[in-house]
């Protein structure tokens, strides 16, 4: 125990000295040649299917920017730590990123539970936080939002818009919802209920599953028994694909409506023929539908070939990072927290390589308030509607 103590003390002393030296620098995480940013993601464990490609997309894009000379002569350094999707580890990671690494901004951080767990620390330490990857609705009414910039999806609005569209344009009278039993799925369900109430149609069943479930035969039968015209999916790709196949197997073929989280080209392989004629929401042009996005994807795949297997999440990572990069560009060579925030507030309907229509303002931190609908047809997603806007909540 004594040896352990000695090591701990030694490490502590060195770190304290390092921290003291860094405090003399003008702004945490910014030097003449470098900007340090950090993220905490599930890079191992059950949610790694999301965290790994998102982080990979960000890193590949940053490498490209650095190869082009960085932004205002500063190279970017992204420190990505693994939290295995566990809140205590996310908290430790964020504290380490702020206290030890000394980051200028926190980018990403996946999952609503993790975002909630680190929220107070981030606000108290006035850390810039760009795109916590969790339902945007959780920030509505949140007071400490000055250094927070969100261009992530609002699942409540998405669910409402999908349901209203189904009632108006697809002749749907009754809907059933298959949802993941966490905030993602529950917010989607709430949105569907609101949309159904507004369009005067009925939600006849809400069937949940847990992220760890691998067997959905009972859920498929339950959905069939509800006899709904349409089934709305708020699921991850595996569960979504399996329940769609399960329903088809027992002879139930409702109209399928789905969250943007499943607007993934991989779904065609996972769900097979059943993934045809599905109506989905989308926030940025999906891979395979837009030249600029495809070019971006091709670029990052050259840097990291593994990203080709999860193109949707990889370009998603870029979409979450891009507004931050634009803020750096606009803030100019004299980069401080204040100049960055001012610069971010000038974004008006800004299009990046992947992200589209980002707007912030002095009182506005919700960067996206529109989506459009697509339909899956023979292995491709085809645009169905123009942009549909929803109210800005924060």
């Amino acid at each position, binding site marked *: 125990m004594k040896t352990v103590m000695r090591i701990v003390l030694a490490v*502590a002393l060195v770190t304290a000295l390092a921290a003291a030296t860094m405090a003399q620098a003008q702004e945490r995480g910014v030097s003449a040649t470098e900007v340090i940013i950090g993220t905490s993601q599930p*890079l191992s*464990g059950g949610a790694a299917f999301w965290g790994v490609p998102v982080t990979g997309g960000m890193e590949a894009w940053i490498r490209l920017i650095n190869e082009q000379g960085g932004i205002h002569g500063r190279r970017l350094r992204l420190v990505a730590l693994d939290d295995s999707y566990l809140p*205590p580890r996310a908290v430790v990671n964020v504290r380490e990123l702020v206290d*030890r690494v000394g980051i200028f901004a926190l980018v990403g951080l996946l999952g609503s*539970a993790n975002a909630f767990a680190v929220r107070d620390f981030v606000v108290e330490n006035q850390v810039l936080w760009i795109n916590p990857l969790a339902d945007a609705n959780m920030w509505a009414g949140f007071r400490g939002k000055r250094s927070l910039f969100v261009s992530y999806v609002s699942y409540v609005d998405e669910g409402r818009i999908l349901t209203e569209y189904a009632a108006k344009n697809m002749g749907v009278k009754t809907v059933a919802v298959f949802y993941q039993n966490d905030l993602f799925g*529950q917010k989607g369900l709430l949105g569907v209920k609101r949309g159904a109430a507004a369009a005067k149609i009925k939600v006849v069943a809400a069937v949940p599953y847990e992220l760890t479930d691998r067997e959905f035969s009972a859920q498929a039968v339950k959905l069939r028994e509800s006899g709904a015209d349409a089934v709305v999916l708020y699921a991850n790709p595996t569960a979504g694909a399996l329940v769609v196949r399960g329903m088809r197997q027992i002879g139930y073929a409702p109209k399928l409506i789905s969250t943007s989280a499943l607007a993934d080209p991989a779904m065609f392989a996972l769900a097979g023929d059943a993934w045809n004629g599905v109506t989905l929401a989308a926030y940025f042009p999906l891979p395979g539908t837009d030249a600029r996005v495809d070019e971006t994807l091709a670029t990052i795949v050259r840097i990291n070939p593994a990203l080709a297997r999860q193109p949707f999440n990889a370009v998603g990572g870029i979409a979450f990072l891009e507004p931050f990069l634009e803020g750096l560009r606009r803030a100019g060579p004299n980069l401080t927290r204040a100049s960055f925030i001012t610069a971010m507030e000038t974004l008006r309907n800004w299009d990046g390589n992947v992200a589209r229509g980002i707007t912030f303002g002095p009182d506005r931190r919700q960067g996206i308030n529109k989506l459009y609908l697509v339909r899956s047809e023979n292995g491709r997603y085809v645009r169905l509607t123009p942009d549909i806007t929803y109210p800005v909540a924060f």
Partner: protein
Amino acid sequence: MAGNAAAWAGGGDPAEKLRRVELRERYEDDLFLVRGPAGWVAAAVLAGGLAALPLVAPKYLIYIASLVAVNAVIAVGLNVLVGYTGQISLGHAGFVAIGAYAFGIVAARIPWTPAAGAWGVPWIAGLIAAGAVSAVFGLLVGLPALRLTGPYLTIATLGFGIAVHQVLINWEWLSGGRAGLFVPKLTFAGRPLGDAEIYWIALIVSAALTVLAFHIVRSYVGRAFVAIRDSDIAAEVMGVSLTTYKTTAFAVSAAYAGLGGGLYAIVLHYLEPNQFTLLESITYFSMIVVGGLGTIPGSVLGAALLTILPLEFSGFRQWQPVVYGLAIIVVMALEPRGVYGRWLKIKRWFKTWPF
């Protein structure tokens, strides 16, 4: 030293072996927590060093130290059950969750008067509730344990842990469901407590509970636990009531887990059911085995090791499980009796030097 280590690597009774490693001659020697002036000096230095940590260490290290203190409480309690009484639990995250939510609900939902809030009444009441509620559940889980052993008890406790998790997810009125439950920050004398003060609270509670555990296992209750572990039939024949002591062991262990859960709520400020899954139960279990079954200091060492290792490995990213898994295998292969066994061997080497 290598030669000595090999000499100790034979078969035999683990307790006997540790006793030989510690060079104890009389049973009474076993009963003292701190032995001799050197022992007291070491204990004082350790206590002083741990208490002074916030003065020298950066904030994130203090936070990690707080997490270690929390997990140490849970591990010590689990070792009383597994290491001393021989009852397996793979559902301890359930007890931790019950304690954490009991704390959260008492601290957040009860309309405390501002005066009570200012003097820290809510969180003291919360901690008491955390230990008490969890202990009651410990008694309940202890009842089926009267009939079950080995894998059967493992599954029964594992089922308990999963049941607690599912109830917390789906009973939103109670737990806030997947949206979680925010635990108010601690205040004392009308002022919110900082990271350092929270660490001191966790440290004091954790140290007090560790010392208490020493006293429990060296009392007649502890000897009854050990008797049940070594042979429950023989223990019963000699007049140790299995019903009383098995359920007591579960209750004590659950109370520790509950208190650990309460501290966890204090340290993290936010509770969500997925923080208390089977994975956590397995981690607690690994802590005591890696640290040393049937040893209190081993529990603390194991808790420290398995809390710090994954955090240190967080920069390894996708390699993290590989490195972490290898680390566990290597530690267990080199130190089959846990890390504490190695510490004793080092201590003895110094004591007997130059022989």
